[in-house]
């Protein structure tokens, strides 16, 4: 993949994001009581409208990347504390996004990243608090446990699909519920309940199983981001430089031609779901071992669901997913600052996310109304001809 093709692929997501910010801005302005109170005088209305939206997005930026207020009186770098938070959240999101993306490659829609994440978090957490092991070994075993559990959880979906034709969307959605409630039950059992506590909270992860922080204890950013980016690179290798990846792409693009060429669609379906599950489970491990340090009932937050958006925005490719996960993590982290500083509800971030998906999922909206042509394949006309 060269720079040019990446740039071409980036056009649609970029436009979608810009449009989402624009519509989001309208929503911010038009739901603000101070703005609405000036609706009778157009000039001051426009002024306060612009300043409200501007301040909101400025706060979003400060909350996600760099906040000069934090830098004041400290070193300049202190201002980057929000960026550290963004990156910490981006790492698991990236892995979940890759999980959804690899399923896309095989023509599968993995809605189950959430449940797979939970299984991974359970595995990593249990190894993390239960055993006493030397550093590094402890981490590796915890991660291994997470991947095995979640891969089985995902692979089960592939098996059902391959053997019985059960649709993966339905099965993964249902398994998400099962995973969430399984976690809730597990946290009440004596094996997982933290001594002296009655609320669903597992014991803290042992120091030896915690991921190394990169810039000291004040910044939560840790090696998890390196693991995630490296996995994104492995993703690229697997898809583009391995026979397994070739088969996966073939099945995803045209399963009937793949079958005719002797590729086992069933094997690919099961294998892909195993990998997808493992990737989401790794995300759960990194989140628990690198940031949360404990297993809670809502450990997965909305990572597994945001991952679908991330994979869509990233157009199913590793580079896209890396960038999209950073972007969405920034939105999430910055959103709370926006609420705190300028009283714009954090839900506006959800609106922006939803709008991005809407514009991506309905590219006709963009291509038709903005008259942008040749976004993806410029050869459609030539291929289909005019003679039907």
């Amino acid at each position: 993949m060269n720079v040019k093709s990446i740039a071409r692929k980036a056009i649609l997501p970029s436009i979608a994001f810009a449009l989402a910010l624009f519509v989001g801005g309208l929503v911010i302005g038009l739901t603000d009581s101070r703005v609405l109170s000036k609706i009778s005088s157009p000039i001051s209305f426009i002024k306060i409208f612009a300043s409200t939206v501007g301040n909101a997005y400025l706060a979003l930026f400060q909350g996600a990347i760099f906040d000069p207020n934090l830098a004041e009186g400290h070193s300049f770098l202190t201002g980057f504390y929000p960026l550290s938070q963004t990156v910490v959240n981006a790492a698991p999101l990236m892995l979940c996004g890759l999980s959804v993306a690899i399923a896309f490659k095989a023509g599968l829609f993995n809605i189950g990243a959430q449940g797979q994440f939970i299984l991974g978090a359970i595995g990593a957490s249990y190894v993390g608090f239960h055993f006493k092991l030397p550093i590094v070994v402890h981490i590796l075993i915890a991660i291994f446990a997470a991947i095995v559990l979640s891969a089985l959880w995902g692979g089960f979906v592939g098996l059902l699909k391959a053997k019985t034709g059960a649709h993966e969307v339905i099965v993964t959605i249902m398994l998400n519920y099962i995973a969430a409630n399984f976690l809730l039950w597990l946290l009440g059992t004596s094996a997982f309940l933290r001594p002296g506590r009655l609320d669903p909270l597992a014991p803290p992860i042992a120091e030896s199983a915690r991921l190394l922080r990169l810039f000291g204890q004040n910044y939560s950013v840790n090696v998890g981001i390196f693991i995630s980016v490296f996995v994104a690179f492995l993703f690229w290798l697997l898809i583009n430089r391995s026979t397994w990846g070739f088969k996966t792409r073939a099945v995803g693009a045209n399963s009937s031609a793949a079958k005719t060429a002797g590729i086992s669609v069933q094997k690919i379906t099961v294998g892909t779901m195993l990998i997808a599950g493992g990737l989401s489970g790794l995300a759960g491990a990194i989140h628990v071992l690198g940031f949360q340090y404990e297993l809670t009932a809502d450990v997965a937050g909305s990572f597994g669901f945001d991952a679908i958006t991330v994979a869509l925005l990233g157009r199913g490719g590793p580079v896209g997913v890396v960038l999209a996960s950073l972007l969405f993590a920034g939105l999430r982290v910055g959103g709370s600052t926006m609420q705190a500083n300028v009283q714009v509800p954090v839900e506006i971030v959800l609106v922006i996310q939803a709008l991005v998906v809407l514009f991506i999922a309905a590219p006709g909206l963009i291509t038709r109304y903005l008259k942008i042509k040749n976004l993806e394949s410029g050869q459609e006309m030539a291929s289909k001809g005019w003679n039907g």
Partner: protein
Amino acid sequence: MSLELQGITKRFGGLVANDAIDFAVADGEIHAILGENGAGKSTLMNIVYGLLQPDAGTISVDGKELTIHSPLDSLAAGIGMVHQHFMLIPVFTVAENIVLGHEKTGLFGKLDLATAREEILRISQEFNFDVNPDAIVEDLPVGIQQRVEIIRALIYDAKVLILDEPTAVLTPQETDELLNNLKKLRESGRAIVFISHKLREVKAIADKITIIRRGKVVGMASPSSEQSELASLMVGREVDLKVDKEPAKIGREVLKVSHLTIQDHTGRTLVNNISFHVNAGEVLAIAGVQGNGQSEVAEAMLGLRDHVAGSVLVDEQEIIGKKVVDCLELGIAYVPESRELDGLISTFSIAENLILDTHTSAPYAKFGRYFPDAVKKVALERVAEFDIRAQSVADSASSLSGGNKQKVVLARELSRPVKLVIISQPTRGLDVGSIEFVHERIVTERNDGKAVLLFSTELDEVYALADRIAIMFKGEIIAIAEPTISREELGLFMAGVSSQKGVSA
């Protein structure tokens, strides 16, 4: 009533699909439009029918200029169209299909079919169509379904009847009946536009022939012209319609099929207890009308179907129950009936498509690693050898024309060491140039001592290539004949008349 087109021009982006086309048909006349796939015939007729708007040019009926915005306008002007793919609802009756879109209703919206039924019977009797208005469409043979389409046009008073590739789906007998029916319609004073790329039929029926090539009218011809003359006008160069074939050098028995029975997943029998064999160095053509079990047999030869009973031996190895990949491994080349669906991955590059079933072998792969550079290198060789016209092997397969797509599939399948070549409908939808290439290549494989199993619904193709002809009808092989069998006799077999003499299996 006469239809006249003047200077019809239609562009799609930079492509000129119709370039200032003039065409006229008078009442009591059959005027054929002859041209290859992609020449612009269908575009032109879709303009007349109102499905497309021309960029320039005029359409006149009886000297009066018309603007046609939709099929309703053309219908009102007395133009009726019979599409290549019938626009019928299979589970409706003939009468219901015919009133569709023009329903008359009585009290409380009750559908009034009585008038339609009478009309259908009247037209059916007038032209000897033998159509029962209460028959369910899906129960009718394709030839009758086509008559339903014609009746639908006539019932709304079409004076100009356009038929788009009407014989593509018909048996030879049905084709003859259609041509006779068209003659009766001509006698009734209707103007008929007959679109086709089949020289024989055009010569048999047309009063005038207009030849279109690359969106332009390249000439008019009379039906008495030689076939080769028409072909070279259509293609734009000299065409050799004969395939040169030396006598077959028959070798060992490569494929032996015994008592093969195939069912669908509901248990319905699609292929019933058939047996045949193919020797090295010969082409066995399985002829038959589309949908008589040929596709299923082809798929079973590669392990692509479930619910298969009987025995299929390739060099004495049983392949029933084997995986597809193992069948390919045994030395079977497989060119599927549908290039688009089963033969190619349209979003993959040409290079990737060329190694679709060899991607795990050297030099493309080693220990699970995949080497795109090696793929590209080999692809360049194949593109040269098989004369695949592409700008770059990195372009997606969807950018290729039908002929070049088929060459990609052939290049892939015939570059492996194979002993049995299974090839289904190899020239469907291809231009004459590509057909020549594909036919020559098949003969080359045969002369090289490979066993070739050819499935074809095109009689010309069967006669050009076959050393023996098996005829399938309703899931059974009803005869295996020498290629000296007459067209009439072969046609009768294809229609299921099995009392004729023939060499049995």
